[in-house]
């Protein structure tokens, strides 16, 4: 799930944020109610970027207009089904936001 940078510049009020979270949980639970939810993680607004030659900067959004708000893992039978879930993601109410669907491939064990 990606948010437009505008969101970062004018952060939502606590009431708005609460409403966004509620909508988000309603959406995720709809997926969970179909036994298709595996897990998910929200990401904090602040962060660090590490570049070659030991260059460390604040914020992951230096060169892109969007930043990643979080991700969830679901069990879908194909891309079509995954896209049908993603279409209902409440983040899409916001202009400039987007949801990207990827297939898990390989994993690091250990």
């Amino acid at each position: 799930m990606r948010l437009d940078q505008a969101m970062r510049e004018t952060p939502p009020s606590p009431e708005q944020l609460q409403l966004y979270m509620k909508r988000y949980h309603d959406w995720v639970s709809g997926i969970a109610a179909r036994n298709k939810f595996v897990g998910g993680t929200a990401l904090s607004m602040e962060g660090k970027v590490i570049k070659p030659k030991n260059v460390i900067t604040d914020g992951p959004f230096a060169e892109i207009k969007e930043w990643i708000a979080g991700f969830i893992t679901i069990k879908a039978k194909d891309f079509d089904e995954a896209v049908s879930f993603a279409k209902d993601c409440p983040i899409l109410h916001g202009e400039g936001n987007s949801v990207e669907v990827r297939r898990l491939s390989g994993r690091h064990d250990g």
Partner: protein
Amino acid sequence: MDGMAAAEDLASETFLTATQTWGLNGIPPNPTAWLYSVAKNKAKNHLQRSHLYKTRIEPALQDKGDTAAYLIDLSPQNIIDSQLQMMFAICHPSISAEAQIGLSLRILCGFGIEEIANAFLTGKDTINKRLFRAKEILRQGKIPIELPPPSGMEQRLSSVLTTIYLLFNEGYYSINQDKTLRKELCLEAMRLCTMLIENESTCLPQVNALLALMCFHASRFEARLDKDGSIVLYQQQDTSLWNEDLISRGGYFLRRSATGSKLSKYHLEAGIAYWNTQHTDSKEKWESILQYYNQLLQIEYSPIAALNRTYALSKVNGKEEAIVEARKLELTDNHFYFALLGELYKDIHRPTAIENFQQALRLAKTQTEKQAIQKQLDRL
């Protein structure tokens, strides 16, 4: 594991003595104390006999000495500790949930084989075989009768709590219509959970949450079954039969469960059960229930949680939206799925409601469930 067999024999001997004596002399003023003192005497005799056997007879037979002192500690604390240790041994993940419940009823609650067979609506042979097999597994696995170490407590406790909750559900949602027996199963589950709460190392937040949950559910016990043991639906229950004392006890344990950093499924279910003790519909009630179900589903999926969540959704966002969500669940072999659709269509499209309730009736497995669905149909 010889200890487990002995405990089982002693428990059933005690109850046998009770039925014989009470039948003749009437029930004593304090039946619990009576049972304990009889069990204590029987245990003492047993231990003395085996002590005598071990120290005198066995050495004499084998012609070698074993003079280790055999102390008999029958203090109330030791009795409780032993029961807790036994609880952890019985609720061992190596045996099936059904067998864990059976063994708990037999050894911890002193139920007879016939009563257990009645509770499961099956024959005595089946129960005997099931318990025998389970004890064999515990014996072969050399499962010690002791509390797990602190590092393994959370994990082992989770299996104990599951068994206690299943035991409670066996009483609460039983296919058996014998109201007294069902109530007894619920009370035994609550008693076992109370023992965990009274012991320091097992009095964890999730244990308090489970007891809160059971108190809240049990508060409706008298109201939700009529005298024939068939179910009275929530909306039709006589709320004056709801047990206020159990509701406030549930509140007490729910508050005590609110510590630590982990939110267990028992916390969420207790939260839902709390709101169900509030009969009047309110926006706050259904929004809270919906949020709890949302979180519950994210922790652990179950078809019944998915269906209940959709019902809560209908209360918060309306039936039309809930119908769309319900259809996505596709639980087409589950009679509750069709009962939910029937309920949602009730005021929107009567023929569709009837159709769904009829499908639910066809899929329902037990008499109790069929009766409950038939009642819904009759009301349409």
